[in-house]
C-alpha cells in the first residue's frame, strides 16, 4: 500500500482571483532563525528535480527547493508565488502572468546568482513537454496550447479550451534555463536531476554517500529567509528503526509514522503527532467481465458481508475513516450524505438469495451450477503486513457469506500486468492516491476500458458516463460539485469497488519545532514559516 497508483483528480475548491496583490516582504516576524531539522525518509529519492521525479520522497524535497507561478496556502486558496499578479481573458483561455522582478536562482558554486525571468517559465514548459522528457507532468498539462514570453517579466499561457480551476494548475515548479546540461530535454542522467538549483526557501547543499540530502536556508529567498538553517533528509531501510531514531533524538521528524509505531510515539510527551488528511483510499475492485460479478447484488453482498470498521480498528488502530464512494473524504467532491453500506451478514445472504443463489453441498453459494468462487489478486509491497491481514480477513468474512476467495499474491509489476493488461482477475486490492488536480473520470468511464486503462474492471454504465462528461464540461464549480455528489451516490449503490477506507496519516515531530503546518500532499509547502526557539537550537 505504500507504492500506489496516482491519478489526477479535480482541483481543490480554489477560487479564481483576478489581479491578486503579491506580498513581497522579508520575514521580519520576530521569530528566531537557526537550528537544524533532521527528518527521516523510508528510502532514498531517485532524483531531486521537479520534472523527472515521481515519488513522494523527491516531491517533498522539490517543494523546499522550487516555486511555482502560483502557490496554494493553508486555506487551500491560490496565492501569488513567482507571479505577483495575473489576468485571465473573459473566455478563460488566456492567462497573463506578471512575474516578480526580485527573484534570484540559487547560485551554483563560484557563480553569481542569476535572475529569474519569463524565459525560465517558457523553458520549463518546453522541456516538460519534450517527447524525450519522461515525466508524470506531461499528461497533466496537455490542456495548455502554448506558453509565450511577451516581456522579460510577462508570460502568456493559452489553453486549448477553458477548464475549471485552471489557475490552480499553474503551481507546477519552474526550473532555470541555465540549470540542465541539456537544454532540449531532461533525463535522470542530467546532473541537474541530482544537484538542482531553484528559487525556493532551501538550497541543496550536498547529498552524502549515505544518501542524506542536506538543504540550507536560502538567504535571498523572495518571501524572506526561512527560519530553520538546515533541513536534512535521512534515508532509513526499516520503519521500526526509524521510530527508534526519533525516540533517541537522532531525528526530529518522521513525515509518515507507521501505524504500528503510533502508540509508542503517542505516549511520549516530547513529540507532537500531527494528523494530516491523505487524498487516498483503499478498495477491492471487481472485474465485471465475470458474469457472476456483473450482477450488482453480488457486489453489494460482498461489501455488506465485510466488516470494514472492524478491519480498520484492528489492523490500523482505527486511524482512518470508512468511506462510501469514489472520492477521498478530504476532497470537496465527497458526498457526506451517502453512508457506507452497513455490515450485515444476513443482508448479504438475502441479497445473494435474491440474485438466485443457493448454498451448495460445500456451503458455497451457487446458481445454475456456477459457484461463487473468485480469485483475488493482491500486489506484494514492502512492509505489507497490514495488507495481508486485510486480505485474509476479507477471505474469512466472505467464507461466512458462502463466497470462496482464492488469494493470489503477485509481485508488483506482474500484478499490474494481470490487472491492467490481461484483466486476468476477479477481484483486486489496491489504493488510489489523488493529487490536487484533475478528476476520477478515468476510473469509471466506459471509454477508459482497454489495455493499461484505469477502468480495469470493465465497468460500464451510460448514466455514469453521462455524468462524468457533464462534470468535465462544466465551468461552474457548484454545478460540478452537484454532479459529483450524484456520481458518488450512484457508484456507492453500484459498488464497482468495495470502497474501504482513507487512512489518517500522522507526522511525528519534536516539540521544539513550532508553527508546523503540513500540506496533505506536498508536505513542506509552508516549511519556511517553521521555526525552533533559540533556547532549543542546541
Amino acid at each position: 500500500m505504500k507504492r500506489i497508483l496516482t491519478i489526477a483528480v479535480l482541483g481543490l475548491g480554489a477560487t479564481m482571483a483576478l489581479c491578486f496583490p503579491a506580498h513581497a516582504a522579508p520575514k521580519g516576524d520576530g521569530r528566531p532563525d537557526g537550528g537544524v531539522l533532521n527528518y527521516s525518509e523510508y528510502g532514498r529519492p531517485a532524483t531531486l528535480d521537479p520534472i523527472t521525479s515521481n515519488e513522494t520522497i523527491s516531491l517533498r524535497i522539490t517543494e523546499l527547493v522550487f516555486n511555482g507561478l502560483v502557490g496554494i496556502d493553508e486555506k487551500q486558496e491560490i496565492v501569488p508565488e513567482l507571479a505577483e499578479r495575473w489576468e485571465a481573458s473573459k473566455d478563460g483561455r488566456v492567462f497573463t502572468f506578471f512575474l516578480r522582478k526580485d527573484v534570484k536562482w540559487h547560485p551554483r558554486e563560484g557563480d553569481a546568482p542569476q535572475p529569474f525571468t519569463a524565459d525560465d517559465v517558457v523553458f520549463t514548459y518546453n522541456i516538460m513537454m519534450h517527447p524525450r522528457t519522461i515525466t508524470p507532468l506531461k499528461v497533466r498539462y496537455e490542456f495548455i496550447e502554448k506558453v509565450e514570453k511577451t516581456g522579460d517579466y510577462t508570460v502568456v499561457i493559452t489553453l486549448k479550451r477553458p477548464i475549471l480551476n485552471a489557475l490552480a494548475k499553474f503551481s507546477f515548479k519552474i526550473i532555470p534555463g541555465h540549470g540542465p546540461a541539456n537544454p532540449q530535454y531532461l533525463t535522470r542522467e542530467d546532473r541537474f536531476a541530482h544537484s538542482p538549483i531553484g528559487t525556493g526557501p532551501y538550497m541543496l547543499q550536498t547529498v552524502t554517500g549515505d544518501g542524506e540530502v542536506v538543504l540550507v536556508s536560502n538567504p535571498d529567498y523572495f518571501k524572506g529567509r526561512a527560519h530553520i538553517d538546515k533541513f536534512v533528509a535521512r534515508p532509513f531501510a526499516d520503519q521500526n528503526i526509524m521510530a527508534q531514531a526519533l525516540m533517541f533524538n537522532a531525528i526530529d521528524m518522521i513525515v509518515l509514522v507507521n501505524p504500528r509505531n503510533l502508540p509508542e510515539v503517542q505516549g511520549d510527551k516530547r513529540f507532537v503527532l500531527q494528523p494530516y488528511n491523505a487524498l487516498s483510499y483503499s478498495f477491492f475492485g471487481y472485474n465485471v467481465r465475470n458474469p457472476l460479478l456483473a450482477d450488482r447484488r453480488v457486489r453489494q453482498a460482498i461489501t455488506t458481508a465485510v466488516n470494514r470498521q472492524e478491519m480498520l480498528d484492528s489492523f490500523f488502530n482505527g486511524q482512518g475513516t470508512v468511506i462510501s464512494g469514489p472520492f477521498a473524504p478530504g476532497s470537496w467532491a465527497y458526498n457526506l450524505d451517502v453512508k457506507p453500506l452497513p455490515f450485515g451478514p444476513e443482508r448479504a445472504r438475502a441479497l445473494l438469495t435474491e440474485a438466485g443463489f443457493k448454498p451448495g453441498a460445500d456451503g458455497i453459494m451457487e446458481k445454475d451450477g456456477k459457484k461463487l468462487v473468485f480469485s483475488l489478486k493482491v500486489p506484494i509491497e514492502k512492509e505489507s503486513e497490514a495488507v495481508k491481514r486485510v486480505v485474509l480477513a476479507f477471505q474469512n468474512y466472505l467464507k461466512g457469506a458462502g463466497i470462496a476467495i482464492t488469494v493470489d499474491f503477485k509481485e508488483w509489476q506482474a500484478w499490474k500486468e494481470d490487472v491492467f493488461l490481461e484483466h486476468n482477475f476477479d477481484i483486486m486490492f489496491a489504493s488510489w492516491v489523488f493529487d490536487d488536480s484533475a478528476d476520477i473520470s478515468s476510473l469509471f468511464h466506459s471509454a477508459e476500458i482497454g489495455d493499461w486503462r484505469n477502468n480495469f474492471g470493465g465497468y460500464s454504465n451510460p448514466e455514469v458516463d453521462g455524468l462524468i462528461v457533464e462534470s468535465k464540461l462544466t465551468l461552474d464549480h457548484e454545478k460540478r460539485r452537484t454532479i459529483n455528489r450524484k456520481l458518488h451516490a450512484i457508484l456507492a449503490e453500484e459498488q464497482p469497488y468495495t470502497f474501504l477506507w482513507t487512512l489518517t496519516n500522522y507526522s511525528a515531530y519534536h516539540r521544539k519545532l513550532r508553527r508546523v503546518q503540513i500540506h496533505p500532499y506536498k508536505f513542506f509547502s509552508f516549511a519556511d514559516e517553521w521555526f525552533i526557539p533559540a533556547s532549543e537550537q542546541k
Partner: protein
Amino acid sequence: MKFAAVKPVSRVLARELALTALLLLGVSMVVFAILYLAPGDPLNVLLEGQSPRSELALGMREALGVPRTWYGQYAAWFGKMLHGNFGNSIRTGLPVLPELARVGVYTLTLTLGSLALTLLIAVPIAVHAAAHGGTAGNTAATIVAYVLSAVPVFWFGYIVVYVFIHQFGMFPLISGTAAKQEHAWLYFLVPIFVLGIASGTLSEMIRHLREELSRVLAEDYIRTARAKGAAVWRHAFKEGFLIPVTEIMSAKIPFLLGGAVIVEQVFNWPGMGRMAWQAAQDRDFPVIMGIALVAAAFVRFGNLLQRVVFTAVNPRASRE
C-alpha cells in the same frame, strides 16, 4: 627454490584469468536472461505515479533509445561494458560503476572485516583442538561456536540492535548521527561483529581447520620431523594451515555476500546489498547486472587466491 614456484603460479594464473572472463560472460548472460524472463518492465519505474498507458511506455522506449529485441538490449549492454561503461541506473540515472565503487567499499569492509573476525575466533579453537585433542575448554568453545553459527543472521542482528537500544540506551545504528556520538566507532564494528559471528561460517571453519590440521599432524613426514626434533609447526604450516584457511575462505565468500544483504538492511549500512535489494525491486537491470558481475568477480577472486596459494605451496599442482 623461490624462482621455481613463480612459473607454475603464472601459468595457473593465466589459465584461471581466461576462465574468469568466460565465467563472467556466462554470469552476465544468465542474469540477463532471468531479468528478461521475469515479469515486469524495468522502465515502469519511470512511469510510476501515472496511469500505465502502453503508448506512453512505447514512446519512452524510443525516447531512451532502448533496442526492441532482447538480443539487441544485451548486445547494447555488452558493447558498452567492454568499454568499461556499465550504463546508468534506470531509477536514479547515475552511472553504475562509480556508484558500485562507492557502496562496494562499505560491503568490502563489512565482508572482509567479518571474515577476519571469524578467523580470529576459529583459528585458536581449531589449532588448540588439533594439537591437544578435545579438552574441556576447546570443546565448550566449539559448542558455543556451533550454536552461534546456527542462529539466523537477521534474527541475531535484531537482537543486537535491541540490546544496544534498550540495555545500553545508545543508538549507534544509523549513519551520520553515529559520528557525533561518543561511541561512534561501534557503528562500524557492530554489523561486522554480527556477520562474523552469525553468518554460519564459524562452525565450518573450525571443523575444517581442525580436521585438516589433525590429518597433517598425523602424516609420516611430520612424524619424521618430530622424531628428528625439527619444528613441527614449520613443517605443518603450509599443508595443515595455509591451504585449509584459504580453501575455506574462498568457499565462504558467496555466503558472506548473501549475509551482507541482510545485515546491511538491518543496520542501515549503505552497501552493495541494499543497493541490490532496491535494484531488484525496481528491475533496474544495469545496476543488477553490475552488482552480479562484481559479486561474481569477487567470488572468483577468492577462488583464484586459493589456487595461487595452493600452487605456490605445491608446485606439482600446476602439472595435474
